[in-house]
């Protein structure tokens, strides 16, 4: 196994063990993984040179899909999360058919516009959506087991970690396929891709739909973890958070956004406690440090270590 993979496995193991000693961390990590999934969707698009300031739409849609369903059908968590993914894929396909025509600022702003329309619908249709009060999400069963809230939260974290590892493995493979590699090439030369006979819009659509599915899964996970969904999940600030996390973690590899999300949630949690009125300052300063010293994101720290390891073992 490669040194990088071992390191990631070590991080995953530490993540899995820490909540056993500090149970409150389980909730923080679950939220981090949920946001990491959405940020991974953003990172996929960023690899192709596309930035979305509207993935809160899919995050919110996944969360509300779970909440609406649980109001009428007591589905198991696994089915709820699957439903959240399908909601994101369907919405992503609809929006993507239109958005895949656009690039640059137009792509970014149209995503923002879609998400803000969705936010307004959630906030204004009070009788259906609960307006700005949102909807309470009752604790669902998990793999057929009825668990109390605390135990459910702990089990949900391990389910989220497992899902993250499986999706991370699948997406790492995807990025090495011709379509995945074409995505990185899209950023540097779309004209050449067209002249190679590659349907660029179809590639963008596929990646957009995947990114929407990831964000919705994240939203669904956050919905059941928090037990309450509000329109803010689809607000532009939430979308901005995902972009922040993706850049903080780095887009060079699939683990990047998850590292970014973990750092983000930990900084936010501690800063909120100790620097209640200036926690955004700390987030801003962190981003500045990353841009200046780790322009590839926190992900490059692992890369650096890997390189150092190779040099050290080189004959």
């Amino acid at each position, binding site marked *: 196994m490669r040194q990088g993979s071992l390191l990631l496995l070590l991080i995953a193991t530490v993540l899995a063990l820490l909540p056993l000693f500090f149970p409150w961390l389980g909730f923080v990590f679950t939220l981090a993984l949920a946001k990491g999934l959405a940020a991974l969707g953003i990172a996929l698009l960023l690899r192709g040179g596309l930035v979305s300031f509207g993935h809160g739409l899919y995050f919110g849609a996944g969360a509300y899909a779970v909440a609406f369903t649980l109001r009428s059908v007591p589905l198991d968590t696994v089915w709820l999360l699957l439903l959240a993914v399908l909601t994101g894929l369907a919405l992503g396909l609809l929006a993507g058919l239109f958005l895949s025509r656009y690039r640059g600022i137009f792509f970014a702003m149209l995503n923002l516009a879609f998400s803000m329309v969705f936010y307004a619908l959630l906030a204004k249709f009070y009788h259906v959506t609960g307006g700005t009060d949102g909807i309470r999400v009752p604790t669902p069963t998990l793999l057929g087991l009825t668990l109390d809230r605390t135990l459910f939260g702990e089990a949900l974290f391990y389910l989220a970690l497992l899902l993250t590892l499986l999706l991370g493995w699948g997406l790492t493979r995807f990025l*090495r396929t011709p379509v995945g*590699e074409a995505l990185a*090439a899209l950023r540097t*030369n779309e004209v050449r*891709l067209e002249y*190679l*006979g590659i349907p660029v819009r179809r590639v963008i659509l596929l990646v957009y739909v995947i990114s929407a599915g990831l964000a919705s899964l994240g939203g669904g996970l956050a919905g059941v973890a928090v037990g309450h969904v509000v329109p803010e999940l689809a607000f532009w600030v939430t979308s901005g958070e995902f972009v922040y996390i993706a850049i903080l973690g780095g887009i060079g590899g699939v683990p990047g956004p998850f590292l970014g999300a973990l750092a983000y949630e930990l900084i936010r949690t501690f800063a909120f406690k100790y620097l209640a009125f200036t926690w955004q300052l700390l987030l801003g300063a962190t981003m500045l440090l990353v841009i200046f010293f780790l322009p590839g994101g926190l992900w490059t720290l692992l890369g650096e270590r890997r390189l150092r390891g190779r040099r050290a073992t080189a004959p």
Partner: protein
Amino acid sequence: MEGAPPLLEALDLYIRFGGVVAAAGISLQVYPGELLAIIGPNGAGKTTFLNLCTGYLRPERGRVLLEGKEITGLPPRAIARMGVARAFQIPQLFTEHTVEENLLLALAARKGFWKWSYLRDDSRRQRARDLLALLGLENLISVPVAEAPEGVRKLLDVAMALALEPKLLLLDEPTSGVSSEEKFRVMDTLVRALKTQGVTTVFVEHDMEVVRRYADRVAVWAEGRILAEGKPQEVLANPKVLASVVGVEE
């Protein structure tokens, strides 16, 4: 060659940009197996012709046929899939990738693009190595494109077009930006590869020596029209052509 039905046929192509007519009723046939050079002064409409044939531009009037099938107005990717590949005056490469990765993407575009397999699979890598060897680039496989010299970038641009196994290759100034020492080496390598692959080629060129040495046939462009067409020795001896292209009468 002439006598066989044309591979590509342009019929009465017309396009203008504002007040400038870049193609004023261009009609031209390209025959299988030939190496056709297009020459003419700057702004004569040579690159516009390539853009019209590859779908980058849509003519206001006229048609383009490939093996008798209409391709007018189709997008570049559709025309590429029908067998028309192109290399550019400024090489169009993926600058964040290596020489090999550029070529692997081109090979995947030809076959297996949507398959769930690694881009760097063994058979594709072998084909990439063969193609790079054909163009003398086999030692530059892992060189990042951004660090490659212009001559290498030119050849890689052509290699990517050849990876599509095209019926017709359109080259826009293959020796521009290449030093005069490198020029004939690049063309020797290129023409040898084209002949080996049996690819019909149209190339836009400014260097008359290159045209004389390598082209089977030459077409002379001037102000969006074809001024003359025929064997290089005959056409390049035409005083009207010399006046138009070189600017002096010999």
